[in-house]
């Protein structure tokens, strides 16, 4: 219910016009199909009295035809209006979710380590379509239909209407609530077994090598069979319950029809209604009940949406530091200074970064090495202003980094391990660096990253789609495209965050050569995992447990540090 108030109600309120229109046409649809039956029943009964003048039947004939045609039309309109309204809501929700995630961009991977969370969230938003189309709309329509039928009937006989109201409420209230209850209980179990099954299967597929070499395939298959037996059992019970519920509801509707027949028989004898209405009243029962039945189905889906909403809701929590971006003109020089820079994560016993002091003047080439957990990423986050130092300071051109907000990216670009290339053309991807770039500028950066020949050889050239079949780009080429983007952006500082991991040695060497050629005037902060290219660096820093372990230029270190010599020898083969 909490989720409902936060994520559903505001949208219902905002789009109540389209939504009420959709519901209105939904009602017309059920009404038309009920009235088709009602008027046909009346028409046939009256006709059998063989009136002298066919004009006496003119009205029912027209009505039968109208309802016969209008039902299809109103249903068509209802579906279009409904979908349109829901798509508007989804559009809003996408923007909302994006707005929620954007400030946490640099922390998402740390906060949510589970697989493809972002893909799942996008799916969750899509799933919410069903909440409106299959749950909210049908429920409102059914409730209106229920109220309308009972009120109409009460005009003839309020006691009987009360009784039928009671019977129908079994369909409209009791069964749906019962279904929801049963489903909720089962769903917990289902979810638990399913996630276990999923994680087992992931272990099997990704750990396939180990299963095969250890000869434990049989173990796995047997274990999996036991687990899935449980899930099939739960599924089966749910399905059987669904089927039995359907049968029970049908029996109930048969009984209600018989009651209607008996009531109209009595009523006709007592003169309450004309005998021509007996068939009409009796037969209309089924299409009306037909309009009420979907409600059980609609309600029992609720737990599925709750799961999606819960995930979306989790995103919202989480502290974010966000500075108002300050106005910084594009400068061509950047001086970075860190002074006793220290950071400690909340709840941690040790400093992730301890008393780090260094200065990187414009144009310097600076390499940062260290084992994982040595504090390299923390340093980066501080540099980008995503974290605020616990003590000490880190400044860019005399201004603390965390005060820049997003304006820091006017000064610093980042080429990371997996730069994301969007599903659009190569040109658009490069243009992200600078929307106002001319064609010549783009061609210049493409040449700088040495992709000009390859791209010109493609039939569509720069207009090639990133993911088009047959024109997939290799790891090295993707890095080059990302580099071109950064060159176009033209910031004084470029951070290279292990951009060559996963490339083979030849590609790596070529890429490094291109990178340093293209960035020769810029400050480069290069986080790397081995010593290739260290000769070109002005300063090399090895970090260990948040502190600087050794530092110096390649030549200095080779002379003074035994540790560096050892590593250099190792790397040199």
């Amino acid at each position: 219910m909490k989720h409902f108030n936060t994520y559903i109600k505001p949208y219902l309120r905002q789009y109540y016009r389209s939504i009420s229109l959709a519901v209105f046409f939904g009602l017309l649809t059920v009404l038309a199909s009920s009235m088709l039956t009602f008027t046909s029943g009346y028409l046939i009964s009256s006709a059998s009295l063989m009136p002298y003048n066919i004009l006496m039947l003119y009205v029912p004939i027209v009505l039968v035809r109208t309802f016969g045609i209008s039902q299809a039309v109103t249903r068509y309109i209802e579906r279009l209006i409904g979908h349109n309204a829901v798509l508007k809501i989804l559009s809003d929700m996408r923007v909302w979710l994006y707005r929620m995630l954007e400030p946490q961009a640099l922390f998402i991977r740390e906060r949510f380590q589970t697989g493809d969370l972002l893909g799942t969230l996008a799916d969750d938003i899509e799933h919410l379509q069903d909440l409106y189309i299959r749950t909210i709309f049908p429920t409102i329509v059914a409730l209106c239909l229920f109220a309308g039928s009972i009120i109409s009937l009460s005009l003839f006989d309020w006691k009987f209407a009360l009784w039928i109201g009671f019977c129908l409420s079994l369909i409209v209230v009791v069964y749906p609530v019962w279904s929801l209850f049963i489903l909720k209980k089962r769903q917990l179990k289902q979810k638990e077994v399913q996630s276990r099954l999923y994680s087992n299967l992931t272990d099997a597929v990704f750990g396939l090598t180990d299963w095969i070499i250890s000869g434990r395939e049989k173990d796995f298959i047997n274990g999996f069979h036991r687990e899935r037996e449980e899930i099939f059992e739960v599924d089966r019970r749910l399905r059987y319950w669904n089927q039995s519920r359907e049968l029970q509801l049908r029996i109930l509707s048969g009984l209600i029809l018989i009651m209607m027949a008996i009531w109209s028989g009595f009523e006709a004898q007592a003169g309450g209604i004309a005998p021509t209405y007996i068939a009409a009243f009796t037969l209309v029962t089924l299409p009306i009940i037909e309009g009420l039945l979907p409600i059980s189905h609609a309600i029992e889906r609720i737990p599925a949406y709750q799961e999606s909403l819960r995930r979306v809701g989790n995103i919202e929590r989480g502290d974010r530091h966000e500075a108002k971006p300050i106005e910084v003109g594009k400068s061509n020089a950047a001086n970075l200074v860190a002074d006793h820079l220290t950071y400690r994560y909340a709840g941690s016993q040790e400093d992730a970064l301890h008393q780090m002091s260094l200065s990187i003047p414009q144009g310097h080439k600076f390499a940062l090495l260290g084992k994982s957990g040595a504090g390299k990423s923390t340093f980066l986050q501080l540099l980008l202003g995503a974290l605020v130092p616990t003590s000490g300071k880190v400044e860019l051109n005399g201004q603390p980094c965390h005060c820049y907000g997003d304006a820091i990216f006017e000064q610093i670009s980042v080429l990371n391990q997996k730069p994301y290339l969007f599903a659009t053309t190569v040109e658009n991807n490069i243009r992200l660096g600078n929307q106002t770039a001319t064609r010549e500028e783009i061609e210049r950066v493409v040449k700088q990253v040495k992709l000009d020949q390859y791209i010109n050889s493609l039939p569509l050239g720069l207009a090639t789609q990133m993911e088009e079949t047959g024109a997939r780009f290799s790891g090295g080429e993707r890095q080059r495209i990302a580099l071109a983007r950064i060159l176009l952006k033209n910031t004084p500082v470029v951070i290279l965050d292990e951009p060559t991991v996963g490339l083979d040695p030849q590609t790596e060497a070529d890429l490094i050569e291109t990178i340093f050629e293209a960035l020769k005037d810029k400050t480069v902060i290069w986080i790397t995992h081995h010593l290739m290219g260290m000769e070109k660096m002005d300063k090399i820093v090895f970090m260990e447990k948040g502190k600087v372990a050794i530092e110096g230029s390649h030549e200095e270190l080779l002379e003074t540090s035994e540790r560096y010599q050892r590593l250099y020898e190792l790397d040199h083969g």
Partner: protein
Amino acid sequence: MDKQLLRYEGSKKTMFIIGLLTVFQSVFIILHAVFLSTALTKLFKGAAVNAVLPLLLGFGGFFFLRHLLQWAKERMAYRFAETTALSYQTLLLEKLFRLGPRGVGRHGSGSVITLCLEGITNLRTYLELFIPRAVSMICTPIILLVYVFTVDALSGVVLLVTMPIMIAFLILLGLLAQKKIDAQMDSYRLLSSHFVDSLRGLVTLKFLGKSKSHEHAIRAVSERYRMATNRTLRLAFLSTFALDFFSSLSVAVVAVELGLRLIDGKIGLESALMLLILAPEYFLPIRSFGNDYHATMDGKDAGDKIRKILSQEDRKLINTQPLPRWNEASCLAVRGLSKASTEDESFIVKNSDFEVKGFQKIGIVGKSGAGKSTFIDLLAGLRDKSSGTILFDGIEVESFTVDEWQRQLSYIPQHPYIFSGTIAENIRWYAQHSSKEDLLLAVERAGLSELVKSLPNGLDEKIGQGGRSLSGGEEQRIALARTILQERPIMLFDEPTAHLDIETEYEIKELLLPLLERKLVFFATHRLHWMKEMDLIFVLQEGQLVECGSHEELLAKKGHYFELISAAKGGRGV
């Protein structure tokens, strides 16, 4: 119609029984209409309610039977669907193990997992819904129509004529919509994936300083997506429209026709009412078939995908051949080892001969794409060779996929898989019943003691999916601890340190070297510093074993190995 439907085991029998039930069901539908119309006619003519009660009860009885049969049909269909889905899942799983990691990787590991769980569920839904719907769509209208004709030919004609018109429109509109959808598929796909693309690229957008302004792009594209979807839906909903329109129009026509002829006294009220009740029933099966059709198609696709994987060629599994345990006197001779590419005519490994003895350490080097990984995969039996003979101590072995060979080796890849479980479970993975002492010793020798001490739960800390995440170096250490515990005489390595930072690589090397003693080792890498520790070096080029010898021998030879070494040094002097 899906021809495959007839080929599932037991599907013919299921369809036959469901068909039979449907025939009875149709008869009950007619009977309940007859009883109801008679009762209503009597009431209309002023009969006492008590006198009509038996008729109403008769109606109730047949109404009940009709839905009872529906229930039975659905339950049967579900049972069949469940059995089929279960057996498909088992087949698929067994196939995965026979295909091996590369074979599975080609289909995308993630999508295989989805196929194996959601795909199977979809297949079940498809079979469960499609079979009874399709059978009803064929049987029920025919039986009802025959009966209607015996009562009133004109109504029969109306119903008969409507059906082909309706189906023709359905197909025409379906084709039209499909054509239109196909035409804008590309832009449609781009629009629909734009949001998830934006989320995945959020970090990059942030780095580019574009993340704030991108919000407008999301709004704009969402709106365009909505427009495009609306255009498509306008067409897609037309098929439902046709179903609704023709069926309700036809019912209306029947009703009006009946009314007109009742005035002339050409037909009785009883028959007229009965026809009025039967007319919607005539259209019901095709409408419910149409409504569920699209929902079930995912399942049909899943079935096709599974069959495609099942038809793939896989590794031969031979479990019978006994082999001695590898020792210092053992000898392995391989002649003409080849592996053909599955994509084209080329060879990934071709015609390689070699011989190794006792506890030799063999380094495998070559440029990327030279076939190092495939070579290791063949030795590990993860892929089947295309040709070549293998002699183990002079005994011919059919393939490296032989159980008794695989049980003797351990394999450490670049990224060893960490199973979701505790550290202890992960280390014990190959040797599940090893003692606590052995386990602690393995932890010690793999250099994991410090890590284990730093964790709140020590050896019982959860790692892998949903547990604590480990660094690349820690993962390698876990893999090492596994091999220490299992004590197998042959060790295979595929680029175990390429992704590690240099300090971690150094540490791992220190730990690893003593573990290679008294083992037959195959070590594929492009980190050439390892080669100094090897007894024998295989140099691969374009899948062929072009050089073989010790580090010193090959350096002196100034051939391919020398070239590799100088290239690596040259590459460094950027």
